């Protein structure tokens, strides 16, 4: 069997090929900008070249005379859109900065005008002819720039609940046998999914259809409706395929309502495909962070005191915050823990979720520090993790639902050949290359949200699943089809799946790695409703369900054991007993502990996510161990990563093929986040300089010679009906630390500020 399709271990589904494979390899998969429109007008954005100040006026004379230009919209003539609440404060918006509503400029690259023309070529050229007169003020760019303001995250951002602490850190640190203190920094990074930020809007009477890549079609629908001041039922969002997202397409960005408004005004479909550089400022990004870590330990490596202080950049308008201390304070056993997260405001666009938003920067800091501590203690870094492994988190003593961290380290170490590592730096070399080994812990909270689904099963064994989930490349189509096939006892090939359309029952934002757990749990629930009806037809006396629960649209907990068991069903016989040819059930699933209004909120495009540090009195995380072989050229100091190994345990693996691919991609992302990715800021202007794919480096094929993913068998009955923990964001957590730990092993040099670049290497 090829490595692309690992043989399933216990509690793993089959590695079936992707449901959407043929569509994607033939070019027929229709992404948002691929949808044909009748007589579209093309929009092109003009964005601000200043980061702070105001627009004094426009000279549109030249632009307007260009052949094919239909109109140009600015704050002077565009519809004033209604403001909507910030996503992290329970709303929809990626930012509360609303372009075209006023002449004020809040950040570089803010939309200041939209040219609409008959062709893309004319719109682009006219956009270049738009002259904007600004009064510019000196902007504040980042940490330590004059003019920043800093304040505790707690109280500013509804998603940031607490600064976890327990015991007496100060005293314990003071008394510790070994003390370690260091500062770590991570840079600005942009998601750069391959698909550009496209939006097409089509009005049919008072009905608006939006084609836009989205991780949350229900959120987008409701957010845009509010901005336009129309009923959400009038808005439909369609995107069957999403060309990568990584967090950038989760919340409602300002462009969508703008394009919808222009399309309404022009009474014509309007299509926007924002340019790559504009994508750096019209959506979100991973903000730069800074971390102070203090660790006190005993000589045998046990942590006795841990303090993690994090600082994050956000915009003036919004208190975006990732607050990864919720993870780092709970990762290892430690009786005395303290933490603090602060938000530093600058004249920037509002940051947002990017693949493992809290864990990537915060775990980088902690896992680098753990490696430094291991060096200090002369311990194997894996053994240091083992000594501090725990079955319950230290802050409030909640037990982990399951935790296979050390099993991951042991499996990974074996495959990687960790025993060949030399503890002393600069010990291994191969010709021009110094070789270093590094490892780190990966972890990601298990999260889920309420979801609804509609499933139709036919007597002939074909089924159709409808749920407004999203396949971002994650394999959602595939695992949803597998979940339905398994529950209904029909072949995978007989299941059709529809996703990415607000006409379908709602699913939560495809973010926070909740998608598989949430959507599959909902689909399983609905399939069980169908099983219930079929079993009832065959065994009417076994249990009598509440009549109401047989009705479409009601009930999420089937009454009998049979439908939830693995008991096979004589489908045709049951259908014949019922005298029907098809059964369709709509159902909703709500995770335990989720707020009562979770489903109502979901229909309004709002997510009530549960899980992670608190899932029904337990703590739920997926774990992994990551290993990096890294080479540093002793002459050029070029850094290459010939080998990555990750071992992961994430509850039930729905499909080892898609899981492996996602984790493989995650490992490469993590490596990239350490070595390549940094959005360079020109601090004079608060502007992103390398806003393109030639200068914002992401890995190419030649950068990833060997990536090994080991999937551990793990069963967790405390999480969700699907038994799934989610792994889309697990793979790129810890990798950056493993890279830096390998750099240390290769060179004896500790790099605490990312990205590692060859000019930082001193051999």
């Amino acid at each position: 069997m090829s490595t692309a399709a690992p043989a399933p271990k216990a509690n793993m589904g089959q590695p079936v090929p992707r449901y959407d494979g043929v569509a994607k390899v033939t070019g027929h998969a229709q992404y948002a900008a691929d949808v044909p429109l009748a007589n579209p007008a093309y929009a092109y954005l003009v964005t601000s070249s200043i980061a702070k100040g105001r627009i004094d006026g426009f000279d549109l004379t030249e632009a307007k005379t260009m052949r094919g230009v239909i109109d140009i919209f600015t704050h002077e003539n565009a519809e004033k859109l209604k403001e909507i609440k910030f996503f992290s404060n329970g709303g929809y918006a990626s930012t509360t900065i609303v372009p075209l509503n006023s002449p004020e400029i809040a950040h570089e690259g803010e939309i200041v005008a939209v040219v609409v023309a008959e062709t893309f070529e004319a719109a682009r050229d006219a956009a270049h002819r738009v002259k904007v007169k600004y009064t510019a003020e000196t902007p504040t760019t980042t940490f330590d720039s004059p003019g920043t303001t800093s304040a505790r995250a707690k109280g500013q951002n509804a998603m940031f609940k607490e600064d976890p602490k327990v015991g007496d850190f100060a005293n314990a640190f003071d008394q510790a046998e070994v003390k370690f203190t260091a500062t770590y920094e991570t840079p600005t990074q942009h998601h750069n999914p391959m698909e550009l930020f496209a939006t097409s809007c089509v009005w049919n009477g008072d009905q608006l259809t939006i084609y836009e890549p989205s991780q949350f079609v229900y959120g987008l629908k409701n957010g845009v409706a509010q901005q336009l001041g129309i009923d959400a039922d009038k808005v439909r969002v369609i995107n069957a395929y999403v060309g990568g997202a990584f967090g950038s397409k989760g919340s409602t960005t300002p462009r969508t309502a703008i394009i919808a408004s222009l399309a309404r005004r022009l009474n014509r479909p309007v299509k926007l495909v924002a340019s790559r550089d504009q994508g750096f400022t019209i959506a979100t990004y991973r903000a730069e962070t800074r971390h102070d870590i203090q660790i006190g330990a005993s000589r045998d490596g046990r942590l006795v005191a841990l303090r993690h202080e994090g600082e994050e950049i956000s915009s003036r308008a919004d208190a975006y915050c990732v607050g990864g201390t919720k993870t780092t304070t709970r990762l290892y056993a430690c009786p005395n823990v303290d933490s603090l997260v602060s938000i530093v405001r600058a004249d920037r666009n509002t940051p947002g979720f990017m693949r493992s938003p809290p864990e990537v920067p915060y775990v980088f800091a902690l896992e680098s520090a753990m490696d430094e501590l291991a060096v200090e203690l002369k311990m194997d870094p894996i053994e240091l993790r083992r000594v501090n492994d725990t079955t319950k988190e230290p802050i409030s003593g909640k037990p982990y639902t399951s935790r296979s961290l050390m099993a991951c380290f042991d499996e990974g170490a074996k495959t990687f050949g960790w025993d060949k590592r030399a503890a002393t730096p600069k010990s291994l070399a191969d010709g021009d290359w110094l070789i270093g080994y590094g490892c780190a812990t990966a972890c990601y909270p298990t999260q889920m949200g309420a979801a609804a689904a509609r499933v139709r099963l036919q007597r002939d064994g074909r089924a159709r699943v409808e749920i407004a989930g999203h396949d971002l490349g994650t394999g959602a189509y595939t695992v949803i089809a597998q979940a339905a096939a398994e529950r209904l006892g029909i072949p995978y090939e007989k299941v059709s799946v529809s996703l990415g359309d607000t006409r379908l029952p709602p699913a939560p934002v495809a973010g926070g790695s909740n998608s598989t757990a949430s959507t599959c749990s909902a689909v399983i629930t609905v399939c069980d409703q169908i099983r219930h009806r079929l079993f009832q037809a065959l065994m009417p006396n076994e249990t009598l369900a509440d009549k109401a629960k047989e009705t479409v649209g009601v009930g999420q907990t089937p009454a009998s054991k049979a439908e939830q068991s693995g008991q096979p069903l004589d489908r045709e016989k049951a259908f014949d007993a019922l005298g029907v040819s098809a059964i369709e059930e709509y159902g909703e699933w709500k995770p335990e502990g989720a707020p009562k209004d979770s489903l109502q909120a979901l229909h309004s495009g709002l997510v009530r996510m549960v899980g992670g540090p608190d899932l029904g009195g337990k703590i739920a995380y997926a774990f992994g161990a990551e290993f990096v072989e890294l080479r540093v050229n002793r002459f050029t100091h070029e850094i290459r990563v010939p080998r990555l190994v990750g071992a992961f345990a994430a509850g039930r693996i729905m499909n080892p093929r898609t899981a492996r691919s996602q984790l493989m991609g995650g490992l490469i992302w993590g490596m990239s986040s350490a070595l390549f990715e940094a959005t360079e800021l020109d601090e004079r202007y608060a502007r992103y300089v390398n806003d393109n794919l030639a200068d914002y480096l992401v890995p190419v094929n030649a950068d990833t010679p060997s990536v090994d993913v080991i999937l551990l068998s793990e069963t967790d009955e405390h999480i969700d009906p699907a038994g799934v923990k989610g792994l889309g964001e697990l793979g790129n957590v810890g990798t950056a630390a493993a890279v830096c730990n390998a750099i240390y092993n290769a060179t004896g040099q500790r790099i605490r500020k990312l990205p590692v670049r060859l000019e930082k290497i001193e051999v």
Partner: protein
Amino acid sequence: MSDKSSSSNASGFNRRAFMAAAAGTAVAAPLTARAAGPAATPSAAQDPQLPVDLTLRVNGQNRQLNLDARTTVLDALRERLGFTGSKKGCDHGQCGACTVLIDGRRVLSCLTLALVAQGHEITTIEGLADGDKLHPMQQAFIDQDAFQCGYCTPGQIVSAVACVKEGHANSDDDIREYMSGNICRCAAYPNIVAAIKQAAPEILKG
């Protein structure tokens, strides 16, 4: 020494850009033949904003178009001809998502003007399969799970087919280097290499 005067005709010009009526015949001929064809006379200044007629040959079929001279092959394919398989990922030759074959060579359609591609054979992802039968490279991409979001995939597959035909699929290192012009943000790279290794023998067999 090279021959610096191999083409010859009176004016050497083919003012096809604005000779709307004549352009069809003058331009459909392959480039090499164009020099021998009747030359149009350079005309007085024309409005460069006016659209021009041209014919693109895509996946074996001629398609007549009247479009802005600034249109790239990529935008002509996507916005005018309905071939939306080729993707726009950067529009500046930095990602490879728009890769198509022109006369069998892999090139970036985002940096190729439609006017320059006249008279040449353009092959897109839509032109690889034989009816319902997938091209071996397409099948290999499915088998090896060589994509996730799928957005870069048409460019990857077209590029991969050319990579094999160029003779650059003889080793893993070669494949990785010669496929480095196609960025995959999901980072399916190791699986892409596996897919190319799977498909190469069948492609080379013909």
